[in-house]
């Protein structure tokens, strides 16, 4: 039978160390809504999402109450809209109409984000894909809760450099259209290499075409819990360090698995995966960078950071995999800058640069995340940053992503405030040398040699 110390340990994790379930994300396929009439399509989308998700928020809150664990976000991911809207949308404005429908139904069911305003163009773009991508700036400007993602490359296909070029321009245009809100639109827009079909985390969640009609995916968190556990093993060797992370990750993930199963039963939707992630928030004591410091670094970004992050990421997976029957999504440590107080401190202190962040993304999920850069950065430079990051993903057979925010009207040294879970960030300098001629070439980077496994 349970003892008082075990019960106290769990409750201490929840009350003092910010243990929570970061998100329950309901994936909904919209393939059966496809229609050549835009009005009919939007009505079908609204009806399908509303019926599937009307009880999502209430159920999440009920589970949180009964188990005594906060479930921070309830969200929806839908089939990439470029696929759903292809038959009905003749212009970018038509796609924006779908974005509005998604936004309205998200507000109606009470979820804080809906993901899937997406296109999968890792090898080539259809006319619909291109229309959707070109409509992203407008869609991000007129909606509040819609998140957008574009998959630009994969290990199997290589990198679509035409789309990379287009996304550099799209990100900049999104920043311009939302400049009154510190270019907030870009915080809801991410590009990927090897995007997973079952990621529950925003902004990159979408419901992949290989998924069932509906599915429940859960993202766990708990950087604060890992940090506290490591405080108890200061000065011990790497074996002890790794064992401690592994055990803690196991406990954290078990809670996610429990919540996922319970939500699946109550909503009568199949359970998909648990995403084993250390996802920070701007709250004090909920930081991945603080874990790196606890391991012995003065700041995240100091020499040793990549090694520390690599071992953290690996141990989180080793502990988490046994705790859940199905693991998926992004699974690993997240290193967003604006959403992590320790990362913000490191940038402010001058310890962490864009180049070091890029190195860190080689060994963790996901990529360059929530990084504010000067608003006068050229589109080709943004495309260059994206291409570098995607190349890491392509060659290393992992997911990588870029969520970068060129803040219009601001420059290095200034702060930008996004609010809520998105946090705030100092604007980071970008290498000012040009890559324009490289990006201008067009076409695609071929699939890497190790993708030919057949």
């Amino acid at each position, binding site marked *: 039978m349970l003892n008082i110390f075990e019960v106290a340990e769990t409750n201490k994790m929840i009350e003092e160390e910010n243990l929570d379930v970061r998100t329950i994300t309901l994936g909904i396929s919209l393939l059966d809504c496809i229609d050549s009439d835009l009005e009919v399509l939007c009505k079908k989308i609204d009806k399908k999402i509303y019926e599937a998700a009307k009880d999502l928020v209430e159920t999440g809150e009920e589970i949180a109450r*009964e188990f005594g664990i906060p479930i921070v976000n309830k969200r929806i991911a839908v089939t990439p809209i470029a696929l759903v809207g292809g038959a009905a949308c003749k212009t970018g404005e038509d796609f924006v109409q779908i974005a509005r429908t998604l936004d309205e139904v998200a507000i109606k069911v009470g979820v804080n984000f809906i993901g899937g305003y997406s296109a999968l163009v890792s090898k080539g773009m259809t006319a619909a894909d291109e229309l959707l991508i070109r409509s992203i700036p407008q869609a991000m400007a007129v909606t509040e809760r819609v998140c957008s993602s574009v998959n630009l490359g994969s290990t199997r296909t290589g990198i679509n450099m035409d789309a990379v070029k287009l996304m550099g321009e799209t990100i900049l245009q999104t920043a311009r259209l939302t400049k009154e809100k510190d270019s907030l639109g870009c915080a809801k827009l991410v590009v990927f290499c090897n995007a997973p079909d079952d990621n529950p985390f925003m902004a990159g969640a979408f419901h992949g075409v290989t998924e069932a009609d509906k599915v429940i995916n859960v993202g766990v968190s708990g950087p604060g819990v890992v940090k506290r556990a490591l405080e108890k093993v200061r000065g011990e060797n790497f074996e002890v360090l790794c064992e401690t992370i592994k055990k803690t990750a196991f406990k954290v993930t078990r809670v996610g698995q429990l919540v996922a199963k319970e939500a699946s039963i109550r909503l009568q939707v199949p359970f998909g995966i648990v995403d084993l992630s250390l996802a920070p928030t701007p709250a004090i004591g909920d930081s991945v960078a603080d874990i790196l410091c606890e391991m012995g670094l003065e700041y995240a970004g100091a020499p040793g950071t990549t090694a520390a992050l690599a071992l953290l990421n690996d141990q989180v997976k080793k502990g988490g995999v046994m705790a859940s029957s199905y693991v998926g999504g992004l699974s690993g440590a997240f290193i967003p800058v604006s959403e992590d107080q320790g990362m913000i401190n490191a940038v402010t202190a001058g310890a962490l640069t864009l180049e070091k962040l890029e190195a860190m993304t080689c060994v963790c999920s996901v990529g360059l995340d929530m990084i504010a850069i000067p608003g006068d950065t050229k589109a080709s430079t943004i495309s260059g940053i994206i291409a570098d990051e995607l190349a890491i993903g392509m060659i290393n057979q992992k997911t990588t992503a870029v969520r970068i925010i060129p803040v219009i009207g601001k420059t290095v040294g200034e702060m930008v405030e996004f609010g809520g879970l998105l946090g705030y960030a100092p604007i980071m300098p970008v290498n000012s040398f040009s890559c324009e001629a490289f990006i201008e070439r067009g076409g695609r980077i071929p699939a890497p040699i190790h993708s030919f496994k057949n």
Partner: protein
Amino acid sequence: MKKTIITVVGKDTVGIIAGVCTYLAENNINILDISQTIVQGYFNMMMIVDRTDSNKQFRETAEDLEKLGEKIGVIIKCQREDIFNSMHRI
């Protein structure tokens, strides 16, 4: 049988256990196990209870106990046993 864990944490004072037990008895909630310690002057108690015969919903019981806690100056939490089992038992 769905077991529920009740935890009580707060400054030690007369009548904490009595208060909680009276409420449980009145609402037909059976106590299966109690353990209690005092850590640095703070009262720490855990009860494992069975709510099968109670006619109150989980939510009501949790809210009632929370209010009772406020009255006697302690924090009372009511959680389903599963969260602790999944974390501490393989």
